[in-house]
C-alpha cells in the first residue's frame, strides 16, 4: 500500500519536499512507517520528537493505516 506523507517545519526540510510517497509492506502500522522513514532519512533520529497525525489527529505507533488516510509528520511544535 502506498501512503502519501505530508511534512511540516523541519520535517519538510529533511525530506526536501512537502510530500513523499512511502510503500508500506504487510505491516501497515504507523511504527512500520516510522522505521521506513528513519532508514530513508536518518536526520529524523536527531529530532527531539517525531509524532504522526492521521486525518488531523495524533496517533500512536500501533495505529493501522488505511488507503486514503491523510498522514502528516509532526516534528516538535513551537507555536505561541
Amino acid at each position, binding site marked *: 500500500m502506498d501512503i502519501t506523507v*505530508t511534512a*511540516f*517545519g*523541519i520535517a519538510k*526540510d529533511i525530506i526536501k519536499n512537502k510530500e513523499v510517497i512511502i510503500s508500506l509492506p504487510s505491516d501497515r502500522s504507523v511504527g512500520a512507517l516510522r522505521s521506513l522513514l528513519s532508514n530513508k532519512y536518518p536526520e529524523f533520529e*536527531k*529530532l*527531539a520528537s517525531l509524532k504522526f*497525525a492521521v486525518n*488531523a*489527529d*495524533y496517533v500512536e505507533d500501533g495505529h493501522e493505516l488505511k488507503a486514503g488516510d491523510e498522514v*502528516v509528520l*509532526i*516534528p*516538535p*511544535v*513551537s*507555536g*505561541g
Partner: protein
Amino acid sequence: MREIFITEHKLDAKACTEAITYPGAGGIVVFVGTVRDQTKGKTVKHLEFEAYEPMALKEMKKIADYATKHWSLHQMVIHHRTGLVQIEEEAVVIACSSAHRKEAFEACQYAIDTLKETVPIWKKEVFEDGEVWVSAHP
C-alpha cells in the same frame, strides 16, 4: 462565545479583549505572545510561522473546549498568526473571561501551556547568517 482562528494578518489584542467583554464579566485575562529579538544571545531578524491548519484549529478548539468547561469560562478567544512575523509583533493572543478572575488566570495559563505542546504550528527563527526551526533538536 468562542473565537478561534489562524491568520496571516496582524493580530489585535484590543479586539480580542473587546470580543470577550460581557456584562457579567468579573475578570478578563489576556496572554499576548510577542516575538523576541534574541535567542541564546543571537539577534533574530524575524520569525516565520507555519501551521498544519486543519489540525491546528482542531487542537486549539480542544483547548478551548476543555478550558471553557473546566473553569466555567464565559468566553474565550485564541488567535494565532502564521507567515512572517516581525520583532515585537504578536504571534498569539489568548483571552479568557469569567465571572471570577482566578478561573480566568488558570484557564489562560493552561491554554498557552497546552498550545505550545500540542498545536501543530512551527516557528522558524531567521538570523543574519541562517535559520533554525525552534525546539526541533534536543
